[in-house]
């Protein structure tokens, strides 16, 4: 267990000043997620352009440093990706959070990979994995236009 690994500077910084913590004007996809056990909630908004590329992504909600940082980093790097690319990145991220030692997606550049790897400390804290993954599950739900609220599971 290593708190320094969990609470890296970049996590604390994103947690304190989350990017894209707002509601995208003219969004065309959105979904809500919550964690019934702890009461955390997130609402993800996506705006896709005519070419189905994410023009803007944002979120509203409240949660711990891990969940806020995760949503912040996610909404930042998903811009400019299409649905297929975004979903592959989600799979890659979830795989890394659970077991994989590294990220493999060809749709992520080195800088993006480095940022996401800052969340890998969560692996050692099974109870906190859902904090990191809630916004990601919720984003998939937005793409799929699911109306049901996403509930987290480990």
């Amino acid at each position, binding site marked *: 267990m290593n708190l320094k690994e969990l609470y890296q500077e970049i996590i604390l910084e994103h947690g304190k000043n989350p990017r894209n913590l707002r509601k995208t004007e003219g969004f065309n996809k959105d979904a809500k997620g919550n964690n019934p056990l702890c009461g955390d909630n997130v609402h993800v908004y996506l705006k896709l352009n005519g070419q189905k590329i994410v023009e803007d992504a944002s979120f509203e909600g409240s949660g*711990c440093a891990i969940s806020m940082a995760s949503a912040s980093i996610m909404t930042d790097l998903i811009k400019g990706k299409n649905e297929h690319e975004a979903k592959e990145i989600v799979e890659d991220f979830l795989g890394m959070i659970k077991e994989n030692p590294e990220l493999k997606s060809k749709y992520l550049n080195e800088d993006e990979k480095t940022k996401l790897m800052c969340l890998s400390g969560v692996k050692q804290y099974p109870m906190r994995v859902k904090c990191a993954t809630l916004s990601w599950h919720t984003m998939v739900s937005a793409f799929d236009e699911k109306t049901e609220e996403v509930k987290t599971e480990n």
Partner: protein
Amino acid sequence: MNIDQIKKEFPIFDEKIQNNDLVYLDSANSSQKPKIVVDRINEFYTKQFSNVGRSVHYLAVAATNLYENTRSSVQKYINAKDKNEIVFTKGATEALNLVANTLGQSYLQEGDEVLITELEHHSNYVPWHFLRKSKNIKINFAEINEEGEITLEEIEKKITPKTKLISITHLSNVTGAILPVKEITQLAHSKGIIVVVDGCQGAPHLKLDMQDLGCDFYAISCHKMYGPTGLGVLYGKKKWLEELPPYQGGGGMINEVKKDRISYGELPNKYEAGTMATAQVIAFDQSIKFLESIGIENVMKHEADLVEYGQELLQKNNSVKLIGNPKNKGGVLSFTIEGVHPHDIATILDEDGVAIRAGHHCCQILHDKLNIPASARASVGIYNTKEDLDQLNESINNCKKIFNL
């Protein structure tokens, strides 16, 4: 009273938790278990096991006597008038569901009002919500004051001519407020209103006297009372338990079963359908013996000292904000730290072996009212010391350091 000696009776404190001594501050969630309780479960399964109340063989009779013996101990401990006013359930949640369900079946009518409070745990709200859905009853909420208390005046204000029932916590699991249950009951009874008490936090930490308190029902969670999980107690006044219909149907609760008619058993069997948590009931007798050996007055004094000490400590710690400041306060210290989410606090404290709870503690109504999504909660039990609270404070400081506060 020697707390070090008492602490030694709890085997878990001999364990290293992730290489740390355990600083257990989560007793409002569930208490640790003294060795005599753990040993009793083992002994019963190893040497004495049988189902109760059914067979006539030696083991069955002996087990039945042990089981009924706990009922008598509970009766004595809470000063209930009659042994049959003690019903075992699978938890306080089931006890409250039993009350709401059976009153819903035969007493409460459409349009009747149930008064609860903003302090209630979900288990003392959701069962009444079921009746709101199925019977169209109305639920009113008594509101907390600035200190996180529910006053008698507030209850009085919220009673209407349609109020049929008041269901309240004895001790808030978030603000620690101890409600004036006796006074509320007197007021309610003068208006013909039934009183149900969620005693989950009250039972382990306060002196219980059902005849003095006067309430109609009182729900107890045994695992918060140094007892086993999977067990609760419902105290109900005999006249109510006799009058109300059964809650669950099955073996043990019947008198006679025919193809065209069924009659139900007498109290308390009427409410104990199926094979009960036998080993837990038998072991719970040891929990009561444990509490009696210390004396509830001593428990209350020790915990009041701890809370006062902890409150002072946290009040002095800038950036820590305590939730509620009730005059009559039980062993609960809920707090927030500006700039650190409670889940992060809990994870960081855990690294030092300090076990607290973070979240809404099953009290979303209260957290909405306080306008916070979650809080951190340290709660004490008989085994805690001032050193535990010093460690809590030190770990909170570490948490602030990590978050650059």
